[in-house]
């Protein structure tokens, strides 16, 4: 404890939270958000959607069960910084391979512990998600706040290009259906679920041309999750537009937002977003509620969608924001939440089945 390196997180509104470093040394800018999941920190760390963000875990005891090589949602850590109340100094789990602290250091991610994370979360709830700097370099508060203010933030910034794959690749080559996944920062659990459902999965980089995709002759297309502002990636939306109605499309999270944009809708930034595994979503068809996993700072404006073409299928019961849509004619549906979970409850997994049904029905209509 004596060798503790002090670390700070400075917010653009001048608020400073102090703690002790337990990850890599350095200084990074990002938007500070909080995640309320009580388990699943490794999945959070490896979720590409956190690119550009500094994540605060509201559950105070993190790192207890260590990290392992299986519970990853991508092959690297994408976030800008990790803030916790207390990082466990030992790990306890039969699958644990290393400590959280070591994991962050190896992946060059800054981690701060000893922070009053509840105060930080409340601050964000009241003031909104905001730009911040996380630093282990003993700098004065003023400099840090200044730096936070001058950082770019998420709005209008294309973060997808940093997390999307560079080349198309097959995740799984076996299966009776072929799905093309447009990778805007896809979580591996989406790919795992598709493979489980008897799909060949071809992953292509974001911005891959529509013609090239159609040339692959897919049975379905999945628009993946991803980081940041959907309005910052018109080059993807343009291609999505060309795909509408041609092949069944399923959008998840960022993918849902891009679909909405392609369908003429608008997106806006939420005050502090939804980041956690306990969001109640009502399926308006069955009227049942699923406890869903969510991770988004932007949202589709319900009123911006043409009610003539588009049906609202899911709503968030906490704040009545849009959670899912379906095109009334074309084989398209999308969800703001994460049916693939990882981390979080599996309540919404059934929606992958709906994607398969959509594909099968489309096949029947075509033949």
């Amino acid at each position: 404890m004596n060798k503790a390196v002090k670390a700070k997180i400075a917010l653009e509104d001048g608020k400073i939270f102090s703690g002790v470093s337990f990850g890599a040394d350095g200084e990074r800018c990002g938007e500070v958000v909080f995640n309320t999941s009580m388990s699943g920190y490794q999945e959070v760390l490896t979720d590409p959607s956190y690119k550009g963000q500094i994540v605060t875990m509201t559950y105070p005891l993190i790192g207890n069960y260590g990290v392992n090589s299986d519970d990853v949602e991508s092959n690297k850590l994408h976030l800008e910084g990790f803030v916790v109340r207390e990082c466990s100094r030992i790990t306890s789990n039969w699958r644990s391979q290393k400590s959280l602290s070591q994991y962050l250091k190896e992946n060059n991610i800054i981690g701060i512990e000893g922070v009053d994370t509840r105060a930080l979360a409340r601050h964000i709830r009241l003031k909104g998600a905001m730009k911040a700097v996380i630093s282990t370099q003993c700098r004065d508060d003023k400099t840090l706040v200044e730096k936070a203010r001058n950082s770019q933030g998420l709005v209008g910034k294309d973060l997808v290009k940093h997390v999307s794959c560079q080349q198309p690749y097959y995740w799984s080559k076996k299966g009776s259906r072929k799905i093309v996944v447009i990778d805007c920062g896809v979580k591996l659990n989406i790919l795992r679920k598709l493979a489980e459902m008897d799909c060949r999965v071809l992953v292509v980089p974001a911005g891959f041309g529509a013609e090239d995709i159609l040339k692959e002759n897919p049975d379905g297309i999945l628009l993946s999750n991803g980081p940041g502002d959907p309005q910052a990636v018109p080059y993807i939306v343009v291609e999505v537009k060309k795909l509408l109605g041609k092949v069944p499309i399923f959008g998840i999270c960022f993918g849902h937002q891009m679909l909405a944009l392609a369908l003429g809708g608008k997106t806006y930034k939420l005050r502090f977003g939804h980041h956690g595994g306990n969001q109640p979503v009502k399926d308006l068809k069955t009227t049942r509620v699923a406890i869903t996993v969510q991770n988004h700072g932007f949202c589709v404006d319900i009123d911006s969608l043409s009610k003539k073409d588009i049906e609202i299928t899911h709503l968030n019961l906490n704040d009545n924001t849009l959670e899912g849509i379906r095109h009334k004619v074309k084989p398209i549906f999308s969800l703001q939440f994460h049916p693939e979970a990882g981390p979080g409850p599996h309540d919404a997994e059934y929606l992958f089945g709906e994607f398969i049904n959509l594909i099968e029905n489309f096949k029947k209509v075509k033949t």
Partner: protein
Amino acid sequence: MPKRTDIKKILIIGSGPIIISQACEFDYSGTQACKALREEGFSVILINSNPATIMTDPEIADATYIEPITPDVVEKIIEKERPDALLPTLGGQTGLNIAMQLVERGTLDKYNVKMIGANYETIKKAEDRKDFKEAMLKIGLDLPRSGLAFNIDEARAVLKDIGLPVIIRPSFTLGGTGGGIAKTKREFENLINTGLKNSMISEILIEESIIGWKEYELELMRDKKDNVVIVCSIENFDPMGVHTGDSITVAPAQTLTDKEYQKMRDASLAIIREIGVETGGSNIQFAVNPKTGRMVVIEMNPRVSRSSALASKATGFPIAKFAAKLAVGLTLDEIRNDITKETPASFEPMIDYCVVKIPRFTFEKFPEAKDILGISMKSVGETMAIGRTFKEALQKGLRGLEIGHTGLDNKLDYSKISDAKIKLRLREPNASRIFYIKYALQKGYPASKIVELTGIDPWFIDNIMQIVELEGKIKNEKLKIKSGKDEGRDLLKRAKQYGFSDKQLAELVDSDEISIRNLRKENGIVATFKLVDTCAAEFEAYTPYYYSTYEVEDEVRVSQKKKIMILGGGPNRIGQGIEFDYCCCHASFALKAAGWETIMVNSNPETVSTDYDTSDKLYFEPLTLEDVMNIIDKEKPDGVIVQFGGQTPLNLAKKLQDLGAPIIGTSVESIERAENRDEFAGVIRKLAINQPPNGSANSKEEAIAIAKTIGYPVLVRPSYVLGGRAMRIVYDDRALNEFMKEAKDVSSEHPVLIDKFLEDAIEVDVDAISDGEKTIIGGIMEHVEEAGVHSGDSACVLPPHTLGDDIIDKIREYTFVLAKELEVKGLMNIQFAIKGDIVYVLEVNPRASRTVPFVSKATGVALAKIAACVMAGKTLDELGFTQEKIIEHVAVKESVLPFSRFSGVDIILGPEMKSTGEVMGIDTSFGRAFYKSQLAAGQGLPKEGTIFISIKGDDKRNIIFVAKKLRDLGFKIIATKGTYKALRSNNISAEVVGKISEGDIKILDLIKAGEIKLIINTPSGKRGQSDMKPIRSMAVMHGIPCITTMQGAQAVVNGMESAVKKDFEVKAIQEYLK
């Protein structure tokens, strides 16, 4: 989905008296349910035999039956009230079992009563071992390998398959009664025998031992539309092998990855659906192999439980309240989250703190029983603590336990404990294992060794190690800490964040509690309070439910209103339980109604007082000077009430006042005057009242001298204790010497009190309220057992059934002058003994007593509410309480004893309280009320059959009348030689049996065979008990009523006579009080 319109009237079955494994949590859940159903417009009929509950307050249900909870009685109520539905899932195992019996005997069909929440098939599937196992296998879940047996031969066959060690679990029992772990063939045979007897259906499960595996629990809720949410996950600190009620438990789960947690969640959803719990809460237990991750299902409770109460308090999600609403057809998304107001209940709470629950044991009350823990529950209460880290919550919990620890402290000097002892205490689960983990670490045991010996997860052990390391550092840097500067200040702050109490720190740095407190405050290290909000700060929370921690931000919203703080009673224990929580709740209700802001402080998760709905503000905190003062510093209340929470807050009164807390009601000085023997003797002399000759001693020599002056037998006890802790009647110098040794340990700051013991006196309890000018009596209760049996253990009758008017007038007169002299403002309780025509005062307690709820229920006068208003400044005239209420009916309070939990313990009653709970019998005559009270206490009196009588010499004269009555009523009598002689010489026919000590065990065989229906056995003095002990033990094991006092026997005969003559009727409390 809108609520059901086909039902209007709903019957709820309560859980009855507080017993080990069924405590206040069912008052909490029942009260919530009644309130929730009435809020939705339903009419509620309630049966509960326990008068000390909030749920049996007349305003909670439409008709409240304080009657014995048996199928016969419930049928009578159904016949009378004709409810449309029965909600069986809120009254613990008792409620569930009775509901099952009502279905089986066709009562529900006969009266067309629907079961809501869970139906017969569901309950059976969840509770019946075989059905449950089949259901689990059907949905592909893993279970420990096991087999069922209905007799010893089948059991042996199963054992052959599985191999030792095995766990034996009887079906349909409470808290695992009669179950156990068998490591040897012999243990196996014994456990099979008791298990078969304890099971309601003579069925036992023999299971692969998964002792040492990690244990988890999930609390779920399901609604009609099949929406399911997990309210809370709980990880047991103690691994499999210790009953979850006896384990330290932690919420949420700490050492599961999300993958494993979700697997458990998926399994839970599949289980609740397969078992078919239609609506409501359930608890599912899992075990996980720490080496392989193999997860097996242990069991499911298709009802609210102790764990669900804990989960509700731990998360702010009121499971019972919502369960009631779901039962009448609402769905989770239609119910609002009370705390956030704007979001629905169809979500899973996210917490941003760590919760630790620690069980409270009372092995000191049963010295013959070992404090070893197993799968049969032994704890009598629990405390819950909330902190930002496990370390903080653990230490808060340990001091909240109120067993003399200031945290994870150094009560024993580790260097003086042998390795053998350390190893034994680690290996064998026991009540103080947590401290031995610390001692082992201090001795230098590596964490891995402790993990190996205890099976406790390394993560927990490491956290304890961190506490030990910091403690070492604090000791090494005493001076720095005391300087309060720089490094010292940081260290102090860290210590507070690790949950160290001021007192604990004082011990480490050779200072005192107040100095540390001041040092801390001077350096700005003060407690910050955070909200329990169900959502980890994601939404605004409106319910002021707080816990303390040492962080940056404080969230308390201090109002400008006039406010009163009520200090609760902490964890339940024998001597201090639900009765005091009842009083605290009533104080809060009354003061709230009178316009005060009320602030509740308590650490007991089972209670109604810690429901965030009860008071305007709730602080879930240990009841220590430090923790209470932290809240007072913050809230600056206008008054602090210490009278209602039992001895816990009373013991803090003086110290709180010294630090400036505004204690209201009877002054601290008056409390001192009543409790200090010498001062009190002065009061008695001044008022010319009689008191048994007495004295107080500070040494062995003084004690012997006093005893000599006043003459044996004497009643001895330490001062300032509740529940007669270590109180004893001694007959000679040797016994007195022995006692002095023990008593000094109990309470070293205070002397030992010695009273002349009045043999064969009648004891009387009085509860009264005084406003300083006027005193009104709430109730005068005559004890059934003679003086010398602790008032908490004896049955009592209101109004007195054998005392003359002149005696009662004398009692009133003494009550008035004592109240005046002691300047009582609020409640007072006086114990009298009547011997001959002389009324002696035994003790005066200027505070709420254990009998306040009983008196309130019997008379309809809410004593605690009136007293609270008096303490806040009202006069009795202003409150309209100007006359003692005289009732036409008779109410009998009977106590319920936990002997069946502690094998080897004799069941003799004495001056040390041993009961865990109470019931009330109410009717128009003493006989019938007494009969009901016995039935309610699980000691149902027979209407026919054989009665065994064996009494001491002194009682021979009195037994004649009793035995004659029994013969007249048609009972057969078996007696021991001496008793037999006495009966025969009075022409009462009886059979004789020989003494066990002489090798005649016929009587034991008769008891075993169920031939004996009642035992009357009065033990003589100290000797002659050995022969009867096995008989009494056998009686307890077989649930045969055993009467150990002559007065009790007389009352019993009175009761049996009334029952044989005419079956009793049921009547709602609201009707009595009309």
